[in-house]
């Protein structure tokens, strides 16, 4: 039994254009749905990450500045280093690197800035560790009064 004399691809031009229009609308709807879902998910995750990272960043910077290296606290070592760039700077630099690598599994960026907001460099050792990232959470900077500051960012 023959159902139709014309196969479907021989439908009129109007019908073809209507089908194409419908297909375009469906595709657009699917894209809109995917976009909405991905944006919504990102928002939810971001809030939680912000809370967690803020606590980690502030607590880590506080612990780093307090820790004793030999008989000096790290904050004192950096302060001395900002005042007079002597051999203590090497101790501070090496210890900072060791501690930071031990503390963070995620990406971070830690730097010590002098009073002119330039990264402290002593004996070719740059007091900047990790990789600067586009989106991050910063701890409140640790201020070395009249000398500079230390900043820590955790990448999100």
């Amino acid at each position, binding site marked *: 039994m*023959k*159902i*139709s*004399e014309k196969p479907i691809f021989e439908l009129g031009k109007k019908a073809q254009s209507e089908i194409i229009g419908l297909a375009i609308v*469906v595709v657009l709807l699917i894209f809109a749905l995917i976009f909405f*879902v991905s944006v919504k*998910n990102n928002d*939810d*995750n971001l*809030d*939680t990450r912000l*809370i*967690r990272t803020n*606590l*980690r960043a502030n*607590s*880590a910077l*506080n*612990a*780093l500045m*307090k*820790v*004793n290296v030999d008989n000096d*606290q790290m904050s004192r070592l950096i302060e001395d280093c900002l005042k007079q760039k002597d051999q203590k700077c090497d101790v501070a630099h090496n210890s900072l690197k060791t*501690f930071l690598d*031990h*503390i963070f599994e995620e990406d971070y960026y830690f730097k010590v800035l002098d009073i002119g907001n330039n990264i402290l460099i002593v004996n070719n050792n740059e007091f900047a560790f990790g990789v600067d990232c586009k989106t991050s959470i910063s701890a409140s900077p640790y201020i070395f009064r009249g000398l500079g500051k230390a900043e820590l960012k955790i990448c999100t």
Partner: protein
Amino acid sequence: MTKKGQLEMGITLMVIIIFMVILIASLILYFRFTYTQIEENKESILDQRYNSLLNVIIGLPEFRCSKAGVESECLDASKLDGFREVSDSNSDYYKTIFGDVEEIWIEVIPENGKDYYDQIEYNIYGGSNGKGVIYSVPVSLFYPDYKKYKIGILKIRGIL
């Protein structure tokens, strides 16, 4: 039935089949998405809860450094050293604070020796055979007998 009627029946059937396929695919997608969202919400709630707990633990007077009543932002290692006995004898009280966490402990950068100054881990609460997710935060540890600070990682193992 006329040819035109047959053709229209065919088209209607095709439309219904395509509609059903799209509907079923959409339903599968919707339920998968809802399931994923529920899982993510659960994870997010647990994440917030355990991070708040980390904050609470850091602020507990049982652990916090203090001198002449003035608290500072660190944990006292001598208090941590003796806390296990305190928590075991007041388990009901600490259960209300720590909730359903499986384990709370602090890892310290290791050094040689046997004194509490050289202890590499302080087990604060719970056992060590859990399989839950670990949440952590770096903390400053103060050793009053030596007047020195170290860095520790406060960790809690939550439920799955």
